[in-house]
Each structure stands twice: as structure tokens, then as C-alpha cells.
């Protein structure tokens, strides 16, 4: 496996980029302004684009990740007839840019993270839509059991619900903490909320909550193995690996109902509950706590779903057969 790195020709000018973003997201920019936005977003690597143009025939397929970065946006059209796009799109303003209408029709195939992501991209792309498959990413089976004393060292008391990932208002952390504060106010400290992940903001921590910051792999495993349920509060996700990991551990999830992907996944797996507001959060959390049998059953159903759809061998088999199938549609000898 070779890794070829290309110099970034210009670093991002944050001030200019923010101003430019506001303009194009408001729909005030021309097509050229929008293309310029991708260049400003970076990483601006013209040498990489040049390399693609010159080496088109040296690879069977080119797999591009994340539509919003310059190498993908500018590079894909150079090798469009052999390009597979993994867009990793979320419901954010960039997806509404007018130049993407055509961009999403260019590749030979698209690999989606979820059905909801497909619907989103389809809604902005001009038809005809390229061949696609919902594959997502894989997730490992739950590892060996970790000594429970790790949790005591962290100050975790059972039962607890776990929130994994960055503590960031964009990830719904602030809303979760306020929902949880309301829960404790009305129901008492019957359950602990544990948040594990690097903090980008200082947040007021309500009674009964524990914000751990970055945790080690061992601590992370122990937290997943002993939790009552996982809480996924993010309003936007393209595929939540934390959710799939929770299911691999046989535990149910409590997710933000405003996030189409999370709500869709929980529905497909029948592996948890969702909440739209503080009241529903309180009801759902209380329900999972007072009905441990139901919580276990939801966790088991989630586990079956995760194993069936997201175990690595399944994902790799799907990926490879999609790539081979797409490759077989390219006429022999075309470059």
C-alpha cells in the first residue's frame, strides 16, 4: 500500500473563508464563487489534481472521500468515468450549493453511509442519479470483558447511560445536559449520565452527570460493556459508529429524533428509543430504566442488526462486489 502526499499550496485564510462561506451559503454567490469556496475550504492541493489527470489510466477505480473537501470536489471530475464517491454528507448548508447539483451526477458510483444520506443527496442532485449502494462503515465485535474496577477509578456509578464523542454544542451535548438536568430535577438521581470524549467547550455539569473528557481504549471498552444504554444526542450524523458499537455490545440506544439518520437506524434495527424534547427524553430514559427486560430486548435486536449489516466481513464483501460490479460496466480499453 502506497501513500502519496501532496503539498498544500495555500493554507486556509480563516477570516476570508468565514466571510465567503456566509455569502455562498446565503445563495448570493455565482457558480465561480461556489467553486472558489471549495478551494478556500482546502486542502488546496493543485499538484494532487494534476497527478490524477496524468495517472487516470494507472488505476481501475478512484475512491473519493467527503464531497466538501477540495481534492474530492476538484479531483473527481478529472477521473469521473472511474470515480466512486463516498460523500459522507450531513444536513449542513454546504450540501445546498448549486454547483453540487451537477457534481453528484458525475461519478460512476456512490457509496452511501445510510438511506437518509442517499435521500438527502438525491434531493439536491440533478437526475439521472448514478448507481449507488448503502454500505456505511464496519464495526468490530465487542472485545473481551474489561475489569469493572476501571469504572470505580473513573467515579462511574451503575446504572449509567453513556454519551460517546466530542462534547460540542454542534453534537447536541449542551441540549443533552439540559435534558438530563431536567430529568434529575423531577426524577432524582436514579441514573448517572457519563460523557466520554474530548471537550471543545466548558459546559456546566448538572447534578448526576459525569464529564470524563478523553478516555483510554480500556476505559472506553469498560464504559460500553457496563452501560445501561447509549445516548446519541447529535442533530446531524452521516453514520453513527458509536451507535453501532453500542449495539455490538448488546445495549439499546436513546437517540435524538431530529437526526434523520439516528432515528432511521433505531427504527430499522428496533434497537432503541428516540426523543424530540426534554419531556420525551425523561419519559424514554425512565422507561428504559424501569423496564430492564425491554431494554435488553432492544439491545439484542440492535446487536442482530449491527452484526447483519455492519460486521466487517459483511461490509467488505459488499464494498468489493460493488466496486467489481461498477468496474465491469466500464468498456474494456477505455481510459
Amino acid at each position, binding site marked *: 500500500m502506497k501513500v502519496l502526499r501532496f503539498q498544500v499550496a495555500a493554507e486556509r485564510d480563516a477570516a476570508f473563508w468565514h466571510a465567503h462561506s456566509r455569502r455562498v451559503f446565503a445563495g448570493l454567490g455565482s457558480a465561480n464563487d461556489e467553486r472558489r469556496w471549495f478551494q478556500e475550504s482546502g486542502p488546496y492541493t493543485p499538484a*494532487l489534481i494534476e497527478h490524477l489527470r496524468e495517472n487516470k489510466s494507472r488505476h481501475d477505480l478512484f475512491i473519493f472521500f467527503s464531497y466538501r473537501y477540495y481534492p474530492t470536489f476538484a479531483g473527481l471530475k478529472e477521473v469521473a468515468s472511474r470515480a466512486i464517491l463516498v460523500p459522507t454528507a450531513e444536513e449542513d448548508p454546504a450540501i445546498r450549493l448549486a454547483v453540487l447539483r451537477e457534481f453528484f451526477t458525475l461519478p460512476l458510483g456512490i457509496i452511501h453511509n445510510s438511506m437518509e444520506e442517499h435521500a438527502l443527496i438525491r434531493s439536491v442532485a440533478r437526475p439521472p442519479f448514478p448507481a449507488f449502494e448503502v454500505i456505511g462503515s464496519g464495526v468490530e465485535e465487542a472485545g473481551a470483558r474489561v475489569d469493572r474496577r476501571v469504572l470505580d477509578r473513573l467515579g462511574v456509578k451503575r446504572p449509567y447511560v453513556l454519551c460517546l464523542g466530542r462534547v460540542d454544542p454542534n453534537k447536541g451535548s449542551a441540549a443533552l445536559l439540559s435534558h438530563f438536568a431536567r430529568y434529575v430535577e423531577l426524577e432524582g438521581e436514579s441514573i448517572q449520565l457519563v460523557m466520554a470524549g474530548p471537550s471543545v467547550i466548558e459546559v456546566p455539569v448538572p447534578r448526576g452527570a459525569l464529564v470524563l473528557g478523553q478516555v483510554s481504549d480500556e476505559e472506553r471498552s469498560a464504559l460500553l460493556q457496563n452501560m445501561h444504554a447509549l445516548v446519541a444526542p447529535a442533530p446531524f450524523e452521516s453514520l453513527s459508529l458509536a451507535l453501532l458499537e453500542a449495539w455490538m455490545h448488546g445495549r439499546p440506544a436513546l437517540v435524538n429524533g431530529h437526526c434523520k439518520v439516528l432515528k432511521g437506524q433505531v427504527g430499522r434495527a428496533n434497537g432503541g428509543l428516540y426523543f424530540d424534547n426534554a419531556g420525551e427524553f425523561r419519559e424514554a430514559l425512565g422507561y428504559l430504566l424501569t423496564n430492564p427486560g425491554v431494554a435488553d430486548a432492544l439491545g439484542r435486536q440492535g446487536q442482530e442488526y449491527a452484526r447483519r449489516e455492519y460486521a466487517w466481513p459483511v461490509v467488505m464483501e459488499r464494498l468489493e462486489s460493488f466496486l467489481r460490479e461498477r468496474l465491469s460496466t466500464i468498456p474494456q480499453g477505455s481510459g
Partner: protein
Amino acid sequence: MDQVRLQARERLGLADERDGEVYAQVKKVFQAAHEALSPGTPFYPQVLGLEDDWEVPSALGWGTHRGRIGALIVWVKKRILFPLNRWLYSYTWHNLHRQQKLNVLLLSAVESLAVSHARLRQEIDELRPRAPQAIPPKATERPAKEPRPRSKDSEPLKLAFVVDRYGADVPGGSERHCREFAERLAGRGHEVTVLTSCARDYVTWANVFPPGRPGMVR
């Protein structure tokens, strides 16, 4: 009974060699349903025997022991209460008849459902031994889409991955996703090249990794 039914159907050209079996199954279903009904529930007049046995004789004598006021009471009974009762009786009677019609209709619908259910079950049983995996599990459904020659299927692919940043210590969901795919495909014997920038930080994109080809990794 079954024999008569079969002969009748033969004469009408509706014969089906499996009919006897089907009807036997349906009969079993109905028998079970009938036995499950608890006795004593029906209060419908017809099941109480002949109508005459329980019907109140309507030849009433309209006498009274009271004087003037008695005549008024008799008049009220005869002209108001008695017709009212009659009307109530016939109203209920008609309702019960309507209900009976509906029951017959519903039962015949249930019957035809039971017949087709039994037929379908027969068909399923017939199909089963011939195709032991008529409904394959989902996981095996996809790769089996169209069988291609084995030699081409195992040929390694030449794949190039294009991503904004790359490295074991690079955070980010899509970056990790890309690395997983690239490494696992390489592990399956494909020829994988990753084309990326020298950056690690996605805010500034400052060049930190050396450019070019740092040899083979992994």
C-alpha cells in the same frame, strides 16, 4: 359427505384432486373454532327452540278493579304502553335478523379465507422439498447477484483513494472511514494507493507530513 361434495364438483367441472384434503383441513379449523366457543353465550331467540314456546301470549284482558281512574290507566296501557312495547319488540327483532345476515356474510368470508389459506399452505409444503433454500438469508443475497467467472472475480483491483488527510493519528470520521477501507482492501490483496495532502489539521491545513512517497507503509 366429502364424497358427495367431490362428485358434485366433478359434475360441475370444478374438480381438483386436492379438494378433499383442503376441505378436511378447513373443517378441522372450523371444528376447533366451534369447540372453543363457550356454550350459554347465545341469547338469540331462535336457539331457544320454537318461537311459540317462549313467546308471550298477546291476548290480554283489559279489566280493572278501580273506578274512573282505572279507565284512564287502562287507556294509557292500551293506547300508549302496549303499542310502544310492540314497536320495541319488532324493532329488536329486525335488528337481530340484520345481525344474523351480517354474521352469515362474515362467516362465508372467513370460510373463503380459510380455504385459500389451506391451499397456500399445501403449495408451500409442495415447494419446500424441491428448493430447500427458497428464501436465502440476506447476507448471501448480494454477492450472489450475478455469478461471474471466478478468475475475473479474484483478480486484484488497482484502487486509488483520494482523501483530505491520511494517517493513523488523524482524527475525523470520514478520514478514519477511508483508512479502514483502504487498509482492509489492501489486506484482501488489492493494489491500493492513497492520494492525500501533507496536512494533519483541518482548520489551517498546515503541511506537516513530508511530501511524496514515504515508501510502503504497513
